[in-house]
């Protein structure tokens, strides 16, 4: 028995033999290639696509059927009494009753009865003959009265669900100071002219000009000062100062010249 080498073509998309494209990971992309070359190896769902549209008349019939279905709206049964709520303002509600005439009730009398019972206003809507409007949220109580006093059968009353809560619109976020200032890593070089709310205390040695002479005068009181002027505002713990002199220039730190730590400008996020 002598065997021969038979060449085989693999699918160019999923690189599997075409019989197993349907079990592979990229079947959706393989479909088109399969349709041309190996239509027998498609999945059964995809094979029938071609047969559907062979008869154009069948296609039209399908569309008509769908349209008819949409037209048929739900018709309300004849004797139903619907009670629903609607809003008048933010907190106030109004109950609406429809469909009472068919049960042989006098609209005026019933509306007056409700007004007396609930001690609130009630009206008949002008446009229609059937609807009564009561001020306030009285839907459940109305049902009881309808059953007991006016003898409306229970199956024919429909209580509609309360309206969904309307969400309050969110207030726009106040400007987040941190966000505005910290864009990236500012290394204390940031914007905070005066915004830094850090903790450092201006040591008040002056402005840190290289020739600090003990820093009297400017920038604080030479001691524990608050870093008047600059330091006080900035309040970062800047090491700053231009010069490298003794002048710590803590006062300046607030400007963000050093490693300010506070909130706002000198605040850093690593």
């Amino acid at each position, binding site marked *: 028995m002598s065997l021969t080498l*038979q060449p085989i073509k693999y699918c160019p998309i999923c690189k599997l033999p075409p019989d197993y494209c349907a079990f592979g990971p990229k079947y959706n992309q393989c479909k088109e290639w399969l349709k041309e070359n190996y239509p027998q190896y498609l999945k059964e769902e995809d094979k029938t696509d071609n047969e559907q549209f062979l008869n154009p008349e069948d296609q039209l019939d399908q569309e008509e059927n769908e349209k008819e279905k949409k037209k048929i709206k739900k018709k309300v049964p004849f004797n139903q009494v619907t009670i629903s709520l609607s809003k008048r303002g933010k907190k106030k509600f109004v109950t609406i009753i429809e469909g009472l005439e068919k049960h042989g009730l006098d609209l005026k009398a019933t509306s007056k009865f409700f007004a007396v019972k609930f001690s609130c206003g009630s009206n008949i809507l002008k446009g229609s003959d059937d609807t009564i409007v009561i001020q306030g949220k009285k839907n459940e109580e109305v049902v009881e009265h309808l059953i007991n006093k006016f003898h409306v059968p229970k199956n024919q009353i429909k209580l509609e669900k309360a309206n969904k809560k309307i969400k309050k619109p969110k207030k726009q976020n106040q400007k987040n100071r941190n966000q505005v200032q910290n864009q990236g890593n500012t290394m204390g070089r940031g914007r905070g002219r005066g915004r830094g709310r850090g903790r450092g205390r201006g040591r008040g040695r002056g402005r840190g000009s290289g020739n600090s002479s003990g820093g009297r005068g400017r920038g604080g009181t030479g001691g524990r000062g608050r870093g008047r002027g600059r330091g006080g505002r900035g309040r970062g713990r800047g090491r700053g100062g231009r010069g490298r002199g003794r002048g710590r220039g803590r006062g300046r730190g607030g400007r963000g010249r050093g490693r300010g730590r506070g909130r706002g400008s000198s605040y850093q996020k690593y």
Partner: protein
Amino acid sequence: MFCKWNPQNLKRNVLKSSLRRKIQKAIVQQYPALESLITTLMPKKKKLEVGKAENHLQFYIIESTILFFRWRQGPFYPTLKLLHQIPSLLPIYYVDGGAVRPIMGGAQIMMKGLTKVPNGLPKESIPAQKVVAIVCIGKKNAFTIGLTEHSTEEIKLINNGPGIKNIHSINDGLWKFEIH
């Protein structure tokens, strides 16, 4: 077996001709039908290389395509890409379509899946510890290579538990492995 197999460094050596002759002999002994084909598969002018991986796995490579592999001194398994070119090399078991996905994911092949298919078992009984190809019903090409653990008669009788060990299947690590 090769589900999540992705080796980083494969050692490769060229075999000298005395060893090469031994291996060719051993392959022909296991697959007598390959006598005439072996010279076309492994022509003399090209070098046969051996690739070694973990667990004493050896591949036999010609021109950067893997032909056979084996563990230690065990039986030679052909790769699926070879098998698609020589479909009648191995005996065939048939399997239902619903079992293809789990087997491609590395599952063993259960006896119930083999007996479920009408006329799925081969006509001649195959003993245990033999290399076997598995094909889905309605298709032509094989999609896994397995090693039988029981003979066909035992599979019919017992009908419970795993029957064939899954060694190499489509779209696993070996299938996707490329040598440069």
